[in-house]
């Protein structure tokens, strides 16, 4: 089947077996292997990418379902230099083996947007209004991304730092 997907700003016209997942399209057909296949079942989050700005498990989605859509992968986040989250993951050692890292970073990127949009989570005391990124909020919102090396302390420190910095910058701008 023919499908056109824009990945990291670049248009890819592909002729794909309809069984090809979005993840395999990225890895095997477009050559972007930053997105990882950890389970192929939507259980680990290593394949997390942004589709139209929202985080999804690319392994649970067929490529042909995304005709005309825009996908951002971990490589896209690094265009023009590492993103603040990418650099913070290095600084706080939010990784060991690195295999879950692209998924963690894509997930965290979207998660911070969700936070700014005021989306509540399972642990939010209040369903309306602004959400503070407490330890519980952060770990709840990032629990779809497994890390077997168990770098959660570093991952959380990295995300917290970037969230704080973004907040400070906003405040300064105001």
């Amino acid at each position, binding site marked *: 089947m023919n499908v056109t997907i824009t990945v990291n700003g670049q248009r890819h016209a592909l002729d794909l077996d309809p069984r090809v997942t979005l993840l395999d399209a990225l890895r095997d057909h477009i050559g972007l292997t930053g997105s990882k296949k950890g389970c192929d079942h939507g259980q680990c989050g290593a394949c997390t990418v942004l589709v139209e700005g929202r985080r999804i498990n690319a392994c649970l989605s067929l490529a042909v379902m995304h005709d005309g859509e825009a996908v951002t992968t971990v490589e896209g986040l690094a265009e023009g230099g590492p993103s603040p989250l990418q650099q913070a993951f290095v600084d706080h050692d939010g990784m060991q083996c690195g295999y879950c890292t692209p998924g963690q970073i894509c997930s965290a990127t979207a998660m911070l947007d969700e936070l700014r949009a005021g989306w509540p989570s399972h642990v939010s005391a209040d369903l309306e209004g602004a959400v503070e990124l407490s330890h519980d909020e*952060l770990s709840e919102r990032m629990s779809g991304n497994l890390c077997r090396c168990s770098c959660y*302390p570093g991952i959380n420190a990295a995300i917290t730092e970037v969230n704080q910095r973004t907040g400070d910058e906003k405040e300064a701008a105001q």
Partner: protein
Amino acid sequence: MTYEMKIDSREETNRTDDMAQGVLGTDSARPDGILKATGAATYAAEPHPEGMLHGFLRRAPRIGQVRCPNLDEVRGMAGVRLVLRDARMVRNAAQGMANEAPVQGVDEAEYAGQPIALVVADSFEQARHAAQRLKVEIDGRDAPVDPQAVTPEEPDDKQTAQGDLDAAMRDAAVTVDAVYTTPSMNSAAMEPHAALAEWDGEQLTLRGALQMLKFNRNELADSVGLDPEKVRLLAPYVGGGFGSKLGISADCVAAALAAMELGQPVRVVQHRRNVFEVNTRRSETRQHIRLAADSEGRLTGLGHETLVSNLPQESFAEPVLQASHFAYAAANRRLKMQVARINRPAAGSVRAPGEAVGVTAFEVAMDELAAAAGVDPVELRLRNIPDTDPESGKPFSSHRLREALTKGAERFGWADRPAAPRQRREGEWWIGTGMAAAFRVNMIIEAEARIRLTGEGATVETDMTDIGTGSYAILQLIAAELLGLPQDQVTVSLGDTAHPPGSGSGGSVGAASTGTAVWLAGMELRRQIAARLGCDETDLTLKDGAVVQGNTRQSLGDVLAGAALTGHGHVHPGEASEKVRQATFGAHFAEVAVSDVTGEVRMRRMQGTFAAGRILNLRTARSQCHGGMIWGIGMALTEALTHDRRDGHVVNRDLAEYHVPVNADVPKLDVQFLEELDPWAGPMQAKGIGELGICGAGGAILNAIHHACGARLRDFPATPDRVLAALDALSA
């Protein structure tokens, strides 16, 4: 030139601390970090050579003789290039450092889930579909799958006894006599096992998800029938291992055979469900622990008797008793190991084989002893620290348990703890704290490394792997320290058998073994630089790319004058391991909340204090300890492979059903390291840190549960159903 060293005796000179660059031991970012964070690090399955085909493993659904009646039909399916049923395919992954092929064959499935065919097709989707269409008929046979239901083997070399434990138990003021169990567990590394094989008619090149390449090369060569010289392995990035990638695996052998038959590159990635069964699990254990003590809690006797399991023809037996040999003093001792030969999937090394489960259960028994004797759990351990190895009388190379216990207790605020259980309540939650000691044997194995030095900088080369442990980071720091170079002038190239053979990653040996080889290579280069200047190596100060000797200071580039130097380091284990008992030590503290409505346990905080010789990179060492402690949370609360009672297959063979800790399971963790230089650990005086953090951690959590709510759990993990049953038993 090669600088070769055997670790035979105490390190007296401490040349490491004479170095001037000042980077070793700092809190330093891993040089591979940015590649991982941006998706540029390439793992085994990720290169895509021209003409690459896709293989998919098909497995036996049951135990017994295997027949595939529709091979020809599958061979005719769209895109299918090969259906491989080759006697050289392997039954399960090789054990760590096996150095030869594991058990091979596809006609007899010895466990449910054994790979029995590889289907290769043009695309992944075609291969998967065709593999699913392959009919597999099993002429079933009865095979034991319950470790309790067979007469176990008792390997002679794994039984020890001193004194008379039965008499000590009879005469003791205080005793503990209880059985503890841990379930099968899985490494569950995030990267599934994967191989990409290329064959040019003479040479086999395989990118694999592997931990110990020099052994893996021989294992693969032996499996497929090639001279090891004709095999090159590449594993520059490995997505976690934790023991599951120690030995050559089914994907590697099948991919190699298919590539050799088809003359095209073949990639085989194990499906996540395969990963749980085709590679090795941590054996379940049954541990009967007996402790005899005087009224002050001083041990007079200890017994640790265990039952573990494995498949026929597997030499590995979970070394549960490894730390019990030296952890605590007691005159009367009995350690006993039994192995049940059963047909569950193969057992092998998983992070800290032995101590991960052995120390963890033993530390629960010690908590029970503390309660029975009315002695504080920290104090109880302090009273039982041996002066020398309790069995052999050999001295310890270095022993920091006392400091770990006292400094950890101080940092955690242990003194504020009420002695009795069930003292703190918040709504439905009981709050309590617990602790455990940590022990892990320390080993050094043979390793080699090379450093090439020019005026532009240095390149470290070894076939060592970095499975997330931080090899890139520490080897860069060691070379930078020895050669007086800024870190960014040292490149580290790993994971290629064309490089000198390092130790590989496993058993926490990497840092001290390959690290020492790099240290020796660096020292060899220092000697060569000194020779160019006509001075002794000890007269050199190397810092920031400058060479200072006496009153002269030159740039390294000027001293080398365009020359490229090569230093080769080669370390061997020596008599040190005979002369002294060497281990790493630590202490775990945990605070938990236990719901008496649901039986749920939530972690509140954890503290770990560890001594592992010189810490080479504070940041990556800390991450290793976080990882170990969080594995302890999994072991204590959620992780258990469930075997089907009929055929032993793993029922919960995926990441939705096998519960590794997620972000929300993990509280704030605090890690501190004790300053230690172990003089018996080679010129860097560094020991392994990758496994110590898990040893005992789960015990601290179960002890905290007891302190919180009074329920004593002896079966891991403490899932809500078990906690509720234990709470019910208390009020019954």
